[in-house]
């Protein structure tokens, strides 16, 4: 079974803090994704990576950056957290053109 893990289930941060969300997958998938999920808006793609050190912007990259130094690990960075970044953050991975597998999610609250 594919396993995607995320570093925290719940996180509370203050406005202006730098926030790191980490995702690890154990299936040697080349593609990894970061989404945020908000009520009524569904899942929106922030960034994805198709290889180590490679990344592409999704639909809502503003205020976020990513890092992929190793194939199994994909980090999402909020350079200066703001209250409008309070959300559920979901990481996913996939191989080739197949389905994406999701992690359990991190519920981030920025106060």
């Amino acid at each position, binding site marked *: 079974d594919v396993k*995607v893990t995320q570093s925290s289930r719940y996180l509370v941060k203050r406005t202006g803090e730098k926030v790191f969300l980490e995702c690890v997958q154990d299936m040697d998938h080349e*593609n990894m*994704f970061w989404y945020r999920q908000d009520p*009524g*808006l*569904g*899942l*929106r*793609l922030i960034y*994805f990576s*198709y290889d180590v050190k490679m990344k*592409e912007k*999704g639909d809502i990259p503003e205020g976020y950056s990513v890092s992929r130094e190793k194939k199994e690990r994909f980090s999402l960075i909020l350079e200066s957290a703001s209250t409008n970044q309070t959300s559920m953050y*979901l990481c*996913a991975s*996939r191989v080739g*053109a*197949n*389905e*994406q*597998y*999701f*992690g*359990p*999610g991190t*519920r981030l609250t920025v106060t």
Partner: protein
Amino acid sequence: EDQVTQSPEALRLQEGESSSLNCSYTVSGLRGLFWYRQDPGKGPEFLFTLYSAGEEKEKERLKATLTKKESFLHITAPKPEDSATYLCAVQAWYTGNQFYFGTGTSLTVIP
């Protein structure tokens, strides 16, 4: 703009009362349509992938079908444990790795 629309937004069924959820899409050149189940506070769990019109997939009480512009998730004799939000996502040939998600149907099955 590419769009995925799911209906209804919410559905309440009595245990054993069969029904269908709808996912309509406007992308041209469908590469794949994906169904996920999401429990509250958790990441989406992959259910099915459909690639071409006429294709069907089944798993326990769930059956997914695909036409040229929509997909249905049929739930036969549902049980309370089928209560969840069901998400649909599509990928087009020209969108690379990007999936477009609907906002989901929240299903409640009452004992």
